Structures are given as structure tokens and as C-alpha cells.
């Protein structure tokens, strides 16, 4: 109804009754309740918070001082407004408040899958081309791509919230270019110092570019387009990983993966601008916030690559890189689903309760339920992976799977706090985790004969466990505080 009312206020049809007709009707009616059944009258008079508001509405509808004086015998608009205020009883207008957070649903699984695709494509590409990329390829691309994706999303959403469409496209365009350039520079540096092939250089740059490109498409609400473009690469990757390589499938898969990556990049680039640079104007504090998001992305990327990739080295099994990382990757969508469900649930809660004392326990309950659903999902995925590994007559890397569950839960709590604008707490938690894990790694180095991989991995797991513990401890106050939502 609201749009109809607003429309009539601003543009009555020339032959429709005007506001004069409504006012006349109110003044001549003994039953004001009947008179105000007209929506325009209800809008102007019945719901007004004071008589000045009625005066403003009358003027906006074309009633000047002269008109009021000539047609209604009142000295001015304020007098007429006061008369209407006294005649028409207050009637509240019911407004449907739009939800900021939509309820999570099954479609979020697909959105989560988009985040998981880069790893899938890279692994499939390795198999299809029968090449071995350097060890640093995936860690570099996932860590750097994650960090760049975080800044890109922050810049894009922030400028969009300021209705700065050009700034949004410029910021994201420059982020994409900066990501490609910096990845290439870092990869060539590593290539020079550590060694590796140019294939690794290309793969690292390609994956990072893809990650930021897909983040851009998601941010620009082009999920369907992103899914369509990724379809060929994702399907062919699954085929390669499930059924193995072959003279027909391998070239097809390589082409599909290349097409998916290039078209995703092209689709993202088509939505961006790189000039005029002077139109990109940031607010004080934007760079600081962007840096924090970048640091956060680096920490998350480093944690994921250390646990999943280094863990696969520590717990060597033939399908380790593919299967070991699966529980976390396949539950990214569940994470998104449960986060949305929690936030939408809290939003509905604030719209329904009338005492602030009721909020804390109910919000905590909503958070617990969403967290438990995610935990259940990742535990089930881990059990499924264990069964799959057992079917290959190998012993599942239980410690690695447990570490992944811890990491997944940490990511979920982390994501929840970031969505509540508490990146500061998240960074503090990660700092505590890194400090603890780092201390442990150093101690192990000097006190045990573990190899370097095992030392680093052990330190990483302790870091993640510590981070999770701190996150859980710090999150309680935020989640149960109504003003945080």
C-alpha cells in the first residue's frame, strides 16, 4: 500500500479527486472514522506525528497559504492542519519492515561451492596435464587470493552502500589489476628464490585472478552468471577426479577449465572501470579497514593452506590433496547458510520482542543452534571422507580431519563476528592463536626431532584451536548484545 500512497501524494491523475476533495470530505463528515478510510487522508492526517506534519503534507499537495485562506477560511495552512489534527483520530499505519538478512536456504550451498571451486580446478588441472606444480603454488594463490578477495568485497560493498557506483567499479577494478600484478611479482620472486616452473607461476596467478573475479561476480549479484561460467570447468574437474584422466577427457577438461577461468575473469572485468581514477574517493578510515580485511584474509588463507595442504604432506595418503580438504570445502555453503539463518533469526527476534532482557538468552540460543548445525555438517562430511579413504584401503588421517573440523568451526565463528563488524576481535583471536602456535613450533623445534612439516603443522593446529577458543570466548558478549546486530 505504501507505494500507492506515496504515488498518489506525488502524482494524482488530473481527473482524480484531489487533496481538496479529501479535506472537504473530512470537514463535512460527522463521522471522521469513515472519512479517513480513504488512504490519502489516512496518510496525511491520521498517522501524522503532529499537526506540523499535516501542514507539510498539505503544502506538498498544493495547498498554499492563499488557497487555504480562500477555500477554507483559515488564516494559514497551520490552522487548517491543526483543525484536521483535532478532527481525525490517530491511526497507525502498519509498515512492513524489509529484512536486511534473508533466511539462509539450500541455495547457499551453491554459493559456497563457488568459493571451493578454485582448489578443485587446480587439482583437476594438475591431473589432466599430468604436471606437478611447485609446492608453493596453492598456498600462495589461496592465501593471496583470499586476502585480495576480502579487500575487494569490503571496498565494493562499502562504496555501494554510499551509492557511489562509479567508485565501486573503480575500486574493484583496481583491486583486480593489483591482485594480478602483485601475484605475478610474488610468484616470480618465489620462482627466482625457491625455484619451480613457469607453469606454477601461471597457475598461481590464474587461481588468484579467478578467486578475485568470482568474488567480484558474487559481490555484483551475478551469482547465476558466475555459476554458469564455472559450470564447464567444475563438471570436467569432477569427471577427471572421479574417473581419472584419458586421451579424450584430459584435453577436454583442460580446455573447459581454461574457458571457465578466462570467461569468469572477462565477466568480472566487463563490470569494472579503471578510469577516471580521481573519481575514486575514499573516506577517512577506509584504508585502515581495508588493511584489516587484507590481514584477515592472509591469516585465513594461511591457516587453510597450512592445515589442509601441509597436513596432507604430514599424513601422506595417495588421495590426500583431493579428499583430505573435502570436508571443509563442501561445507563452505553450509557455513553461509547457517550464518544467514542466524542473522535473519536475530533480526526477526528484535522485531518481535519488546523487552531487551529477553534478547540475550534467545540470541545465544540461535547462535548455538546455527553453530551446532554447521558442526554436524562438517563432522558428517569428515566421516564420509573417512569412509571413502577406507574404501581405498587406506587409513584415514583422523588428526587432519579433526584439525579441519576445528578450522571450519573457527571460520564459522570468525565469519559471524566479521558480519557483526567485529573484525578487531577476530584479528585479536588470530593473533593469540598465531602467538601460541608459533611458541609451540619453536619449542618443538628445539626439544624434539620432528621434521619441519610436522612442527609447523602441529603449531598450526594449536594456533587454530587457540583461535577458536578465544573466538568463542569473545563472541558471547557480541552475540548477546542487541546493538551489535
Amino acid at each position, binding site marked *: 500500500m505504501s507505494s500507492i500512497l506515496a504515488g498518489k501524494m506525488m502524482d494524482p491523475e488530473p481527473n482524480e479527486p484531489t487533496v481538496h476533495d479529501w479535506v472537504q470530505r473530512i470537514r463535512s463528515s460527522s463521522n471522521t472514522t469513515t472519512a479517513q478510510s480513504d488512504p490519502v487522508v489516512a496518510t496525511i492526517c491520521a498517522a501524522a506525528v503532529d499537526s*506540523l506534519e499535516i501542514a507539510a503534507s498539505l503544502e506538498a*499537495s498544493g495547498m498554499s497559504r492563499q488557497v487555504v485562506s480562500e477555500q477554507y477560511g483559515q488564516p494559514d495552512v497551520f490552522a487548517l492542519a491543526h483543525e484536521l489534527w483535532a478532527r481525525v483520530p490517530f491511526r497507525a499505519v502498519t509498515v512492513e519492515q524489509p529484512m536486511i538478512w534473508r533466511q539462509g536456504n539450500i541455495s547457499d550451498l551453491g554459493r559456497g561451492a563457488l568459493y571451493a571451486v578454485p582448489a578443485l580446478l587446480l587439482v583437476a588441472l594438475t591431473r589432466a596435464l599430468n604436471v606437478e606444480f611447485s609446492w608453493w603454488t596453492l598456498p600462495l594463490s589461496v592465501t593471496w587470493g583470499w586476502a585480495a578477495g576480502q579487500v575487494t568485497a569490503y571496498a565494493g560493498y*562499502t562504496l555501494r552502500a554510499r551509492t557511489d557506483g562509479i567508485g565501486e567499479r573503480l575500486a574493484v577494478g583496481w583491486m583486480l589489476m593489483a591482485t594480478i600484478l602483485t601475484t605475478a611479482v610474488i610468484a616470480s620472486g618465489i620462482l627466482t628464490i625457491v625455484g619451480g616452473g613457469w607453469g606454477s607461476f601461471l597457475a598461481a596467478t590464474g587461481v588468484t585472478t579467478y578467486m578475485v573475479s568470482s568474488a567480484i561476480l558474487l559481490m555484483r549479484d551475478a551469482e547465476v552468471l558466475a555459476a554458469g561460467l564455472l559450470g564447464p570447468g567444475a563438471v570436467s574437474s569432477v569427471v577427471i577426479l572421479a574417473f581419472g584422466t584419458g586421451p579424450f577427457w584430459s584435453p577436454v577438461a583442460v580446455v573447459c577449465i581454461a574457458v571457465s577461468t578466462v570467461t569468469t575473469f572477462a565477466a568480472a572485468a566487463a563490470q569494472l572501470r579503471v578510469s577516471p581514477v580521481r573519481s575514486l574517493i575514499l*573516506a577517512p578510515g577506509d584504508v585502515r579497514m581495508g588493511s584489516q580485511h587484507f590481514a584477515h584474509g592472509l591469516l585465513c588463507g594461511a591457516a587453510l593452506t597450512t592445515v589442509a595442504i601441509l597436513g596432507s604432506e604430514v599424513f601422506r595418503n595417495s588421495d590426500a590433496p583431493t579428499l583430505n580438504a573435502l570436508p571443509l570445502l563442501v561445507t563452505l555453503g553450509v557455513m553461509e547458510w547457517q550464518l544467514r539463518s542466524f542473522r535473519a533469526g536475530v533480526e526477526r527476534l528484535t*522485531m*518481535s520482542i519488546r523487552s531487551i532482557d529477553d534478547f540475550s538468552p534467545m540470541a545465544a540460543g540461535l547462535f548455538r543452534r546455527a553453530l551446532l548445525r554447521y558442526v554436524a555438517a562438517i563432522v558428517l562430511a569428515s566421516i564420509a571422507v573417512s569412509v571413502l579413504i577406507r574404501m581405498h584401503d587406506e587409513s584415514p588421517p583422523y588428526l587432519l580431519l579433526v584439525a579441519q573440523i576445528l578450522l571450519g568451526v573457527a571460520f564459522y565463528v570468525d565469519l559471524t563476528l566479521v558480519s557483526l563488524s567485529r573484525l578487531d576481535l577476530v584479528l585479536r583471536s588470530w593473533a593469540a592463536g598465531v602467538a601460541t602456535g608459533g611458541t609451540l613450533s619453536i619449542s618443538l623445534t628445539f626439544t624434539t626431532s620432528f621434521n619441519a612439516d610436522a612442527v609447523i603443522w602441529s603449531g598450526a593446529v594449536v594456533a587454530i584451536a587457540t583461535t577458536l577458543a578465544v573466538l568463542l570466548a569473545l563472541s558471547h558478549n557480541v552475540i548477546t548484545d*542487541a546493538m551489535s546486530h
Partner: protein
Amino acid sequence: MSETKLNKRVPATAPVVLADACRPTESGRVIVVSLITEGTYPFHDGGVSVWCDQLLRGMSTYEFQVDAITATASEGSSWDLPANVSAVRTIPLWGPTGTHRPLSQLKPEVRDALRWLLHDITSPTDVIDFQISLQRLLPYAQQGTLRASLLSKEAVGLTLDALTPHAPTGRRVDTLATRPTVADAIACLRTLEHLLRPLCVPPPMVDLCHASSNGIGVLLAMTAKWINSTPFLLTEHGLYLRERYIANSPAAIPHHQRAFLLGFYKQLTAAAYQMADVIAPGSEYNRYWEQANGADPAKIRPIYNGIDAPNFSVPSGEPDVPTLAWVGRIDPLKDVFTMLRAFAIVRAALPDARLRLFGGTPKGNDQYLRACLDLRKHLGLEDSAVFEGRIPSITDGYHAGHVVVSTSISEGFPYSILEAMASGRPMVATDVGGVSEAIGDVGIMTQPRNHRAIAAACLQLLSDPARRADLAMRGRKRVLDLFTLGVCLARYSEIYTALTTRCEDEAAVVDGGGVPISTSRHLPDGLVGAIRAEATAWQR
């Protein structure tokens, strides 16, 4: 000097120091004026920004600092600043801030002050009470703790208590609003936190605060007055409160949130009227609204906008075919629909007639432009009514018609009317805001939204060259006599002199051991000195 600690992380940009080229006054002292703007100069175009630019350039013996209330401080400057502007400070209401950290418990004095402020907003009574509530919160704003206090759990509870009345006081009730929810309280507090941000920055340390509009910016002038007895001049072109009422329709915002928001604006604007030493509305029309909201009539001195009339030449002839010119932005408040409908009637009587519409479409009004184009098509005017967008010389737009038409449903004292008259064209205009004061008897006034009356007036003038010529000549004369930039600036100069002279006299009393006349008794001992020191350091 007090030991009161003030917050160093105020959410405002440091002043951008510019060239200092102003001249000292006869007394040898340069008078510094803070020109307070909100959403206008120097970051946006529009009538108020034109006025600001004219004022700054015209009052060249004064040094100005521009205190601009902005959205995020990421706005780019749209104007070249004159040499006598020494600094521009932006105070963003919605930009990034520090992290919100939940506050476990409010200090008793903050709780008490907040309770009163919320009560003053939701149950407006005496505007002095509202001012006192703001003053009591000022120390916490300056110390940087107000934000955390407003975003606390206790504040939510206080707000729910304050919102509880279901209907406006003293009115019969047909249908009660539902009781306020926690979401209502949260929305109210979040908005209040943004709107009170100017309280958190150091007040302008100047000789005079001149607010270019009522609204959020006046908090700076109010603070300066409380802290330093700085005189306060309030100019009002549009009517801030009236525009807030129109913008926040009952169908768009839940009742409790709307009542809270409008209650705040009403109290704030009334407080500004109460605290201003002089209120200088842009028209007599504004006076009625100001008085209706509690302004003292003795303080109101309308000053009409002025234009640099010699810049607007008189054309030698008229267009070949009967033409109406319309100049303005494509906006619902300009009521382009009525213009098109009126023109359809004109066109039916004069098949050769043309309508030329000049002016850009602001961001967000694209849908309205599309609706206008649809209506034009519906009325069969596609060949005869042309939207020509922005043009380099606005004078060409006025000269393009035999008659210039204004169909606005809301106006202050529009430059476009003065410019059209100065350009030697007769006007047909709707009687809104200060338009009748501008036009007087040298144009035809009609009711707003009455397309038939507008069409009749246009046809009358299009068919009567002698009357057109007479109105055009008298219109230009009227502008040259009454609405020149020189007249406008002279009025402001008088007020500046009067207010700053009085300020110097009062300063002498203070220096002699007195107490600043307007300094509030509700500010704690020591705080005034601390805020002054902080503001002076900030200024430097």
C-alpha cells in the same frame, strides 16, 4: 586550566588549511566566521551552494572556515574555494567509525541525561529542556564515550521506555500503534548516534557561527555558543523540518521510529531558533514555519537571495514559434507532470507550441524521468516537448521561451525565478514557498498542481505580446531593484558587524573577570576550558 581529558579520536577530518588572503577590518582584527553547511557547499551543487559561494566571495573582508556536515567525508569538492576561506573541515555523519564495543553499564549521570534526552524527543515539551539534555551529554561526546553509551543495552531499555506511548499526546486514537519492539529502539538509537556526531568534534573557535540551514549542523553552532558564547546566525533557504516531514512518510518508516526521528528534528530545529541570535530566512514564507516552530518573531530578519543581474542579458527577440521554457532539475518537487499536462492543453489550443525543458536529472531520479517520458508519450507530446538536459549557459534556457514556467510544489526563494526575470522573460509560476514574494505583480501566479490554471496563464501570455513585454520589463526592474547580490550581501554585512561587535563587547567583559554570557551552567567545571583548549589546538 582543567585536567578534563578530551577524546583525540573525534570523527572529523583535520581542517584543510588554505591560503589566507582576507583583509583585516578597520579595527585591525580579522573576523573569523564559521560557515556551517550540511550536504551542500563545497561538495555538492545546488541553490544553497550557489548562495554559499556568493557569500564567501562577497564578504571578502572576513575570514571563513567552512564546517561541512557530510555523509562519509569521501565527497569530492565541487567548488573552487575563494582565497578568504582559511580551512574546510568535514564532519561525516555516516562514515566509518571506531569499532562498537558493548558497554556493560552506563554511568549514572549519563543514564540520567540520556533518559531525559529520550524523553524530550519522544514527548516534546520545552525546547530548553532538550538543550539542557544535550548539554549534559556534551562532556561525554567530547570525551568520546557518547557513542558507546548510546549503543549500550541500557540505552535500548531507556529508549523502549521512552517510546512506550502509543499515540501522539493529546489526540484521539482510532488505532493504536503496536508497542515498540527492540528493533524500533535499536533503529532509533543508531540514528541518534549518527545525528549527534557533530557534538563529538571540537566546536568552531571563531567570532561568528553562520549556519546555512537549520538541521544537524546547528549542533556545532550551539556547542560553540555554550562553550565560547560565539554568536550564532541562522540562515534558512528551504525549511529543514518541513523537508524532513515530507521525506519521512508514514508509509515508509515504522511509526515509533518515525515519531522519534521527527521528534528529534522538531526539537533540534526549535532549539536552533531559540539559540540563534538572528534568524535570516530566505523569504517571508519561511518566517511562518519558523514561528510555528517556536521562533521569536523579533529575531527573524528575512534576507532575499540576490543574483548578479548584469550577467543576465535581455534578448533582442523571441522564438519563432510559441514556446514555453521550463528550467530546473527533474525532480518530483518540481512537478514536471503538471507542466506536461498543462502543455498538452496549450498545445491543443496552439498546435505549433513547443515546450523546452532544461535541467539535469539528479542521481536517484532516473525513475521519475522515465515516468515523465512515459507521460509525454501518453499525452502525444513527443515531438513538441523536449527534455534538453543541462546546458552550458542557463540564460539561453530562459531566452528559449516566450514565457518561463515554474510548476514546483515546494520552493524556498528560487534563483531560477530571479534569473528568468532578470533575463527579460515573463513568468508563470505556482504559488509555493517564497515564489510570490519574488514575483510580486510582475508575473502570473497559479495554484500548484493545477495544470488547467497553469495552461490558462500560459495561453494568456502567449497570445498577448504587449502584456508579455510589460511583465518582462517590470520583472527585470524588480530584480534590479530588490534582488541583487549587492543588496543581499549588504544585509549580511550589517548582521555580521552587529553580531561580531557585540561579541567583542562581551569578550571585554569576560576578560575583565566576568563569566561568558551564554556559557551553560550544565557543563561541568573545567570542561569548558578543556574543550576550548582542544578546539584551539585543532584549529591550529
